[in-house]
């Protein structure tokens, strides 16, 4: 029986680089034609885009060696034959793109908040971080610190939010919206599935109403109508009004996403938890939600990315986020006509953040699939 004991190898043509090429790129003649066509397109496009964005581009000086201070000095405006992108506009306006009109003397506070944000995200990004518990405490109190740091108070001079702008506003809206909407969304999702008809009806109404209205409408609603609900004499900050609108909007979407996850949990899990004597909240916090949220990671990240990009809509109520600053710069006669550069830059910044979120979601999915514990500790 054991006489023939040689290991048979797969045919050479299906392994290695040649095998991979053959299977994936040159499987039959249509496949080969498409491959060649795509290679031709890339060959045309990649050198051109590299040339425009980097090799022929102006960064600070134009091709004559002068420092660029307005669009007329850009190489491509001086000599259309010579020159690509004129990044000088980003260089000159960089401060506004990142901080808006935040006073220069106080800008260290924004920088500190950015650094602290990175530290606050660390324990969420790396489960194996040493001393993760203490980092997490910091994450919980970070919003309070950031509020006083950015807004003022506790000995800091106040910086009114109408001086905020650019990436600062984008990040404040995005992070706060996502962070606040998550717990509210969970409560709404549980509420909608509640057996108590009043609670379930209220949650359903809220979700359906908010979800049925465009974000722009909610932003106008926040700007115009929220102050009407407040007692007289109390003025609500413009950015806070927008934040309320953005959070409400996001929590309705989050609720529906999490409800989807809740529906995927088999009834046996509820029964097992109940039979062990767990109360409603224990059952949900320890058994149901950790599993439901795990299932919902891809759509949660999806709606979060959506919100991060939708924050650009605040431009219509007069708040200048990253895109707003970009459009403001375009309206400046000094920089008229540099829309390629500005939109390219704004897109790139958004892409960096959203791509990061997307990779994080993949990492989470992979990590949780291998069975490492999450949330229940």
């Amino acid at each position: 029986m054991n006489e023939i004991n040689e290991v048979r190898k797969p045919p050479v043509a299906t392994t290695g680089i040649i095998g991979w090429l053959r299977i994936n790129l040159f499987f039959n003649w249509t496949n080969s034609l498409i491959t060649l066509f795509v290679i031709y397109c890339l060959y045309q496009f990649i050198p051109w885009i590299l040339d425009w964005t980097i090799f022929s581009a102006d960064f600070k000086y134009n091709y004559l060696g002068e420092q660029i201070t307005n669009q007329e000095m850009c190489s491509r405006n001086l000599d259309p034959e010579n020159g690509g992108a004129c990044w000088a506009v980003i260089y000159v306006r960089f401060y506004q793109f990142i901080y808006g009109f935040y006073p220069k003397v106080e800008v260290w506070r924004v920088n500190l908040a950015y650094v602290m944000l990175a530290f606050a995200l660390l324990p969420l990004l790396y489960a194996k971080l040493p001393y993760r518990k203490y980092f997490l405490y910091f994450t919980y109190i970070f919003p309070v610190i950031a509020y006083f740091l950015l807004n003022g108070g506790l000995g800091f001079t106040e910086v009114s939010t109408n001086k905020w702008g650019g990436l600062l506003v984008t990040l404040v809206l995005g992070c706060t919206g996502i962070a606040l909407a998550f717990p509210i969304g969970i409560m709404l999702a549980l509420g909608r599935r509640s057996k108590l008809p009043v609670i379930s009806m209220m949650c359903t109404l809220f979700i359906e109403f908010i979800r049925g209205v465009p974000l722009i409408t909610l932003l106008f609603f926040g700007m115009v109508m929220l102050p009407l609900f407040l007692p007289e004499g109390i003025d609500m900050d413009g950015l806070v009004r927008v934040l309320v609108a953005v959070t409400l909007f996001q929590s309705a979407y989050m609720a529906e996403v999490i409800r989807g996850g809740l529906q995927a949990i088999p009834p046996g899990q509820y029964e097992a938890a109940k039979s062990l004597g767990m109360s409603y909240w224990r059952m949900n916090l320890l058994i149901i939600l950790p599993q439901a949220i795990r299932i919902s990671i891809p759509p949660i990240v999806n709606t979060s990315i959506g919100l991060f990009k939708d924050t650009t809509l605040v431009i219509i109520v007069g708040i200048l986020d990253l895109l707003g600053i970009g459009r403001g710069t375009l309206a400046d006669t000094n920089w008229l006509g540099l829309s390629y550069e500005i939109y390219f830059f704004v897109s790139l910044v958004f892409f960096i953040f959203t791509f990061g979120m997307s990779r994080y979601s993949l990492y989470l999915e992979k990590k949780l699939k291998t069975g490492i514990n999450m949330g229940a500790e």
Partner: protein
Amino acid sequence: MSEESIISLKNVNKWFGDFHVLQDVNLEVKKKERIVVCGPSGSGKSTMIRCINRLEEHQEGSIVVDGIELTGNLKNIDNVRKEVGMVFQQFNLFPHLSVKENITLAPIWVKKMPKAEAEELAMRQLEIVKIPEQANKYPGQLSGGQQQRVAIARSLAMNPNIMLFDEPTSALDPEMIKEVLDVMVDLANGGMTMIVVTHEMGFAKTVADRMVFMDEGKIVEEASPDKFFNNPESDRTKLFLSQILHQ
């Protein structure tokens, strides 16, 4: 109701919509008694034991468990559930937690036991069900028989007075049934009050103090195993036994 009854069902009725799933069910279970409930599927046996820890609500009649009547009172329900352990056909382990965490979760959060003590308890329970070496695995990495034994250990960790088993071996491959039944026999010999819904007639013969046969939502026959298997009274029981024993 006799003094020693730990579970007492009186004229219990329940409907699913228009379907009358439990019809005037009466059952008294004494302390340390082992009851095996059998009957064709849809006869209401699972529903009956699920009423005992209020996973299902009965609509008429009374159910008293260890002196506590099951009503809408949430506190009573929680107290009864602390007394009564339950093992399910589909195991229902918590897949996001390790075996050890599955067992320690309820002692820590419901009984407020310190974590170290709960872990010690979990290891003791895993010894009892003979799989201490699986403590750090996740449910998905275990065989069906091992999962069901973890489920038993998880229930036992709450130190219940009564154990309910809802077809504990029906979802298992044949070669794993024995390892689960062995654990249940040990438990029965240790003096646990048990109500077991099962089709394992061998188990019933060795362990049961009393057999309960249900059909169409009614208890048709209640007898000692000896009488039940050798000399049943009702024709319905005879038919059922002839079918199940001649498979």
